[in-house]
Every structure is written in C-alpha cells, then in structure tokens.
C-alpha cells in the first residue's frame, strides 16, 4: 500500500481504521505460521480444509450477525433460530416432504423470524438485545418442543446433508459444497455492502441514524431489510449444520449466538455499528477454529483453549480502541 496520494503518511492506526479486515487477517496469518512451525501436522491440505469446514456453521451465523451489528444491533437468537430450522427441515424430510421443499420452508421460517425481529426493533422501538434475548428463550424452547426429546437423524445422502459432500479440486484439495456456498455468500454480501446503495445505507444507519434519516435514507426500512437478510442467512446456516452433522439436535449450538459474536468482534467489526467488514468476520471465524485445531495438536487442554479465545476477544477490541485513540 503506498500513501503517495495522501499528503502525510497516515498513522498505523488510521490504516487499520480504513481497512478493518487487515488486523484479523494478520492475526490469522500469524496463527497459521506459528502452528505450522510448531507442529508437523498443522500445515497439511487435509487439515487446512478441515479447519475451514469446522468454521462454516459459526462463520455463516457470524455473517448474518455482522450485518446486524453494522446497524448497531445484536442478535442473540440466531443460533436458536438455526437449530429450530434444522429440526423443522429434518422433521419434514423424515415425514416424507422432498428435501428441497423442506429446505425452503426452514429458510422461510428463519427469514420470517428476522422480519419479526426487525419490525419489533423499528416499529416498537425495542432494543435488539431485548427482542432477540426473548426470541432466544422462545426459540430454544420451540426447538425442544419440535424435537420432543429426540435428535432427528437424516440420511447422509439426502439433499439436506448435501453440503457436507467432499470433492477434490485439482486432484488433491478437499473442498465441500458447504465451503463453496459460504464463499459465494461472503462474496455476495461483500459486494452488496461495499458496491451498492443498500450497503452504503446500512453503514450510514449504523454510523449515525439521525444523519442518515436527514439525508433521505429510509432508516427503518434499511434496518428491517438487514434483519430479513440475516434471517435468510441463518436458515442457510441450518443447511450448513446438517451438512456437517446429519442429525438435527435441539441441544446443539447452545453457545452459537456468542460464538458468532466472538467471530464478528475478532473480525474487527465495531459493536457500536457502522464500522466493519464481512471478510473481517470470515477471518474472525477462522481464527477461532485455527486456534482450536493448532492448540489441540500442541496438546493444550481444551479449557485453556477457551481461556485463550476469550483473552483474544478482549485483546482484539483493545487494539481497536488504541487504533482509534491514535487518530
């Protein structure tokens, strides 16, 4: 990056502020390098592919979460909505509904939930934290009611589990359809956020809702659209989850909501809204799985892995703060 067009050299802090995905990308590279040097097993194609696969579900939840956090909102119900959708899809499939239809219905349910959340946030002016906290409680219970105490296994060769199918690119790189789908989703969202009017509106609403309103942006409509799109994404996360484990379990992903927030925060997106990027989030989701994979191979107990992940979240926000202060 040259700074020839700028009159003075920009400070490091300003540079980080301009490209919020740079920090997490560096952290990810550092982690990969450290584990590649310290273990003989980390830097293998199969393992790198596995790390990506392990991050798909939380990475997809985090993609929707990023949109919401960009508008200065937060969603505590995303994983519960996803788990409910996995159960609905699996139940429908087992009940004889074609996989494609079951998938669409599941995604429609999470999209509708997004619409409900968005409407409550904009029309009734409820804080997103409260709305989604309530929904989280309700949806967790709903999933358990639908499951009736039983996890619902689905056929591993059904369309609902199709994303777990592994293919070998160029003769040796293991890739699942789930990875391809996640990459496409990230690219689409990146394009929408950075290259369209809608994306500019999302950032503007998150930065300064009042200023956005005065400049003619339909703030409420933008916010509702964000929750709706996020809801669609959480439905697709359910599809990813079934591709990974073809067994819909009401007890799975109990901490998925917090895991998704962790990925967003590690990815450099500000919880105050208006600043962040989807690729930062992608890095954030990968950092968590890279840490887990690498530390396991180093023989570190998983409880210490949790300690490390938590410390990293705090450190990431601290770095972000210091960068802003430099400005």
């Amino acid at each position, binding site marked *: 990056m040259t700074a020839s067009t700028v009159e003075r050299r920009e400070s490091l802090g300003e540079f980080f502020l301009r490209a919020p995905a740079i920090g997490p990308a560096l952290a990810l590279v550092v982690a990969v390098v450290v584990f590649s040097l310290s*273990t003989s*097993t*980390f830097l*293998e194609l*199969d*393992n790198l592919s*596995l790390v990506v696969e*392990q991050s798909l*579900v939380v990475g997809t939840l985090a993609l929707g979460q990023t949109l919401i956090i960009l508008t200065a909102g937060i969603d505590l119900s995303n994983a519960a909505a996803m788990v409910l959708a996995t159960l609905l899809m699996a139940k429908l499939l087992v009940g004889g509904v074609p996989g494609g239809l079951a998938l669409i219905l599941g995604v429609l349910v999470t999209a509708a939930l997004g619409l409900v959340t968005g409407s409550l946030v904009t029309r009734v002016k409820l804080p997103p934290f409260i709305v989604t906290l309530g929904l989280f*409680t309700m949806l*967790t219970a709903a999933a*358990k009611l639908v*499951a*009736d*105490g*039983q*996890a619902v*296994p689905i056929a591993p060769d059904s369309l609902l589990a199709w994303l777990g199918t*592994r293919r070998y690119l160029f003769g040796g790189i293991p890739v699942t359809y789930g990875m391809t789908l996640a990459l496409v989703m990230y690219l689409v969202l990146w394009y929408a956020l950075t290259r369209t009017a809608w994306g500019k509106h999302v950032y503007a609403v998150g930065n300064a809702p009042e200023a956005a309103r005065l400049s003619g942006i339909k703030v409420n409509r933008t916010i509702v659209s964000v929750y709706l799109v996020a809801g669609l994404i959480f439905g697709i996360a359910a599809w990813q*989850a079934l591709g*990974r*484990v073809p*067994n819909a*379990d*009401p*007890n*799975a*992903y*109990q901490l998925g909501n917090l895991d998704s927030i962790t990925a967003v925060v590690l990815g450099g997106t500000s919880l105050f809204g208006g600043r962040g990027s989807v690729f930062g989030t992608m890095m954030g989701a990968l950092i968590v799985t890279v840490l*887990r*994979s690498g530390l*396991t*191979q180093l*023989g570190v107990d*998983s*409880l210490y892995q949790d300690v490390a992940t938590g410390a990293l979240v705090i450190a990431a926000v601290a770095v972000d703060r210091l960068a802003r202060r430099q400005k």
Partner: protein
Amino acid sequence: MRQRSLLCLVTAGLLAVSGCTVERHWGGSSAPAGSGQAKVGLVTKTETNPYFVELRNAASAAAQAQGAEFMALAGQFDGDNDGQVRAIENMVQQGVTTILITPNSSTGVLAAIARARQAGVMVIALDTATDPADAVDATYATDNVAAGRQQGAYVKAALGGAAPKVIMIDGTAGSTVDTYRHNGFLEGIGLRDGDPAIVGRDNANGDQSIAQQKMENLLQRSTDLNAVYTMNEPTARGAYAALQARGLRILMGSIDGGCQGVQNVRDGQYAATVMQFPRKMAEEGVAAAVRYAKTGQKPSGFIDTGSVVITDRPMPGVPSQDTTWGLQNCWGTK
C-alpha cells in the same frame, strides 16, 4: 391449589423471573406421610435428552398405574443447578410427598434437597448419586463406574492382547457421571490417567458436533490409535464421523443404550455400547414413593439398576447381549 400454581407458573414465565410471589409456607400443604395419597415430583436434568424423556414417561406411566399424582420439571441444560433448585422449591410448595431427582451435579442441589427433606418430603436420586450419598433417602441408578468398567473390559478383550492406544472423548469437565465413567473405563482397560497409552483426550459435553470437531483435531495430531472411549452415544456418533472421514476403522465403545446407539452398534459404527435402564429407575422410584405415602417406610442406600454390554461381537469373559435384544430393551424412539 393447582390452578393457582398454574397461574403462578404462567406469571413467572411472563415475568421471566423465578421467584413467585404466592405466599410460601414450606411443606405447609404436603400430605403427612402415611396418609395414603402419593404426590410424586420428578426433576430431570433437561427436558430434551431422550434418556430423561424415557425416565419421565416411565415415571408418569408408573404413577398412573399406581394411582399417584405426578408432576415433572427440569433444568434447562446439563449443569443447570439453579433451575433444579427452583424446581425442588416449586414442588415442595405444591405439597409433593416424594421428589425423584436426577441431580445435575452431585453437590449442586444439596441445600435445596435438605430443605425439602426437612419439610417431610422423601427425596430419591435417580440416575446420578449425590455426594455425600446420604444427602438423599435412597439412590436408584446405574453404577456408572461399573458401566465404564464394562466398556473398558470389552475394549481390552477386543484388543486381544495388543497394547492399547486410546483416545478418550469425555463429557462435561467436572460432571460426576463423566468422572465415574472415565475412571471406570480406565479401570476396566487397566490404565491410569496420564498413562502414555492414552494418546489423546478432550471434552465434548456429550454433543455430537463438538465431539466430531474434537476428534478431527485429535486425529490430526496422530492417527496412531487402536481404541476410542466415548462417554455417551452422541459423542460416539461424532467421533465415528471424524474417523470415517479419514477412512479409519477403530475399535470404539460407548455407554447409554439409547435405541439410536444400539442401531449404531448394529450398523457397525462402533463395536459396543453399555446399556442402562432408566425405565427401571423410574418405576422403582415411583413404587418407593407410593410405599412411603402408604406406610411411611423409606428405602435406603444405593440400588444399582444394572447395565449390560450390547454388541454383536461378544468377547469371552465379558457378559453381553446382542443388538436384537438391545433394540427390544433400548430407550427412546425405536
């Protein structure tokens, strides 16, 4: 009374608070022992685990058959001591004569149990013993150390003299059942914690997707293993998926005896599982509650409801049943 408690529950739900402002008089309405009518309250760990669903259904059916009143409450997740304490308080409030509880932790709900017993309620632990064991009147449970020991003994026999190289996928760090099964397995296979023969170990909280991820990471570290211990069947399914993805076929054992687990054994996903009998625990617990209400007599001590190895590859010296028998006696959806 019932309507009022229902109203109170609804109110509590709406307010999302646990403290209900109906006047509290501990045990004030509980029928004195020996008056005949048993009111049985069952507190399970969660409402979603098929094992506890089986326990609840069996207890409910037994109560109906023996003319006892029955209510069931549960914690919200594995390890939700607080939710169980609230459930116990609610039940004492509603005048139950006996509480059957599967404690989330062997020490987490002792104070609430003591208060219930002071109020004249008999408390019986099902499935999980308390620590100390005499914190409750009696315990009907699987001896989890014995269940773990059977898994260990089976794996040892199936290895046929080969030196074990084991990966252990445990449950929730610090949970009683988990510790007992883990220790029992080591005893059965003849190893100690920290032995180099244990080539990997991790906690998966009994969750299939977490188990799969942990197993994948452990296998990346080393695929030099010949046996896998799993603390329950969802864990075994997750571990199997990770092994299968690497094209490994490894001798694996599990514990539980859910119908899906027995089917997994039948399909060859893992070699054996150790079945336990929740229905028996529930039926014996309810029978004891009815006896107590009629005569005031209490059972005491630890009553082992038994466990048995289910496998289609029996090993000499390890008593077992085949999967056909297993599918007839398993719990959950057949």
